[in-house]
């Protein structure tokens, strides 16, 4: 009977090793094991040390932390086919907006920024950016980003938001 058990076990192992799901798992397991071992291989870590000393990457218009976005709550048009100052193709800009006052670390100045919504298509759904510095509730609409500022457009659907410098904020 032990011979029969061994025969059965060997057959099962052989069959299992040739089934596709197990094979895939086996390959994944090998890959993961290999990946886990990679950091243990002898490599020159000098370049990593240099990277740590380097200045942090400069923020750009597709980063939510970009200075102009200090009072935004919406999708960044720069991720949706537009730029930080232009609406994506096929949409229309809202003539009414809210404004924020944002500090530009590049020149040390505070700027008034107009946040115009781009309208006429449904939500872009990419680069949701929710920052609310000095943002106020809707009883102060000129500083509120909870309203759909496409409300007065012929097509009132909200797509994304741009950030347009209006001027330097007076102290």
């Amino acid at each position: 009977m032990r011979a029969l058990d061994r025969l059965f076990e060997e057959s099962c192992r052989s069959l299992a090793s040739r089934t596709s799901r197990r094979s895939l798992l086996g390959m994944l397991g090998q890959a993961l094991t290999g990946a886990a071992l990679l950091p243990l291989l002898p490599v020159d870590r000098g370049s990593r040390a240099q990277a740590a000393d380097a200045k942090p990457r400069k923020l750009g218009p597709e980063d939510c932390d970009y200075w102009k976005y200090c009072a935004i709550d919406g999708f960044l048009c720069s991720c949706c086919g537009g730029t930080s100052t232009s609406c994506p193709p096929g949409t229309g800009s809202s003539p009414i907006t809210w404004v924020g006052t944002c500090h530009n670390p590049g020149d040390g100045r505070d700027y008034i920024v107009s946040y115009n919504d781009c309208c006429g298509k449904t939500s872009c759904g990419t680069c949701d950016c929710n920052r609310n510095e000095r943002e106020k509730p809707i009883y102060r609409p000129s500083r509120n980003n909870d309203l759909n500022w496409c409300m007065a457009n012929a097509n009132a659907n909200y797509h994304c938001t741009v950030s347009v410098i209006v001027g330097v904020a007076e102290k």
Partner: protein
Amino acid sequence: MQSFTRWAAALGLALWSGAPYAAPPPPLPADHLTQEALPARGPHWVYVVDYAFDNEIDTRVHLYDGDSHRRLGQIDTGFLPGFALAPDGRMSAVATTYFARGGHGVRTDVVEFTDTATLATASEIVLPPKRLQAVPTLFNVAYGSDGRFLYVSYVTPAASFGVLDPVKGAVLAEIDTAGCVLVIPSGPNRVSSLCESGRLLTVTLDAQGHEAARSMSAPFFDADRDPVFVQGVRTARGFAFLSFLGEVHEVDLSGAEPVFAPPWPLLGPAEHAWRPGGSQVGAIHLTLGRLYVPMHRGGEGTHKDGGSEIWVYDLAAHKRVARWALKAAGLKAVVAVEVSQDAAPVLFAATDAAELAIIDAATGHIRHVEKHLGQTPWQLLTP
């Protein structure tokens, strides 16, 4: 292939040697397609308003049972909706917008009424294209206390509100609110609105829904120094408004003129790093007199950040009675809270990861976390 042959031979040997033979089970009977009826209302039902921020033309309200942990049904709510329950609980009202071609086309603003016993759409009232399109509050659309009038906020951005008769299916009037926003109901025929000056405008209506009188209160908050959230929390005699810096402003709306209680602080002397925040920043159990607030550590601009803790207060004593560290228990940031009003209440907490936590409102024990309840559940209402 050789080993498979050996395996089959072994199996045949086993069968031949007397192993029991199981007859195949009988086939399944044919199904009967049926229509599920909504069960009788449970004590821990909650309407979860999902603003579906990634595709805002397709928002919806999920009806969820906090006891069975099941989704019971859905109400479609269009684009940036307001949602309200009738005082008798038999109807819900959704003030919303549809575009004729899905994401574009002719705009129709409308209030849709849904029978809460069946979740079937019952009727509608078409609005002028002026409806407030904004994040949820209790005051985007609201019923008067006897259900005769329904009020709808308008912002074009000029502010006004519509007075509707749900029975007649008609818009009765539009009331200009001179820059003050939202419809805060009190009694059968009064509507208050929040003003930038920190005052409340209160309009009293006549039997036809037209303006009979109006008054402006003294300021009760400072929008520059410490604005109040517009997401008011219902109290026994009106609403409580929390401020960005953690003051509680209770407004008694039971009389002809609003009465403002002296504000009291959520924070102790050494707790100024903490703030309330989210999209529904408080819930009150009326008979127990408990206030629940999602709190986070943060500064300027964090008023929409969800809470890492729930702080619980005795409303009458103005004292905190508990701190529940929900983030430490594995929950994401809590952006909306609501509490059932029964004697064994549960606190519902929606997170910024679309979780809905079912929490014992007496102890803070998390009974269940429902994952992926919609996309961006920003408001909760208990029937």
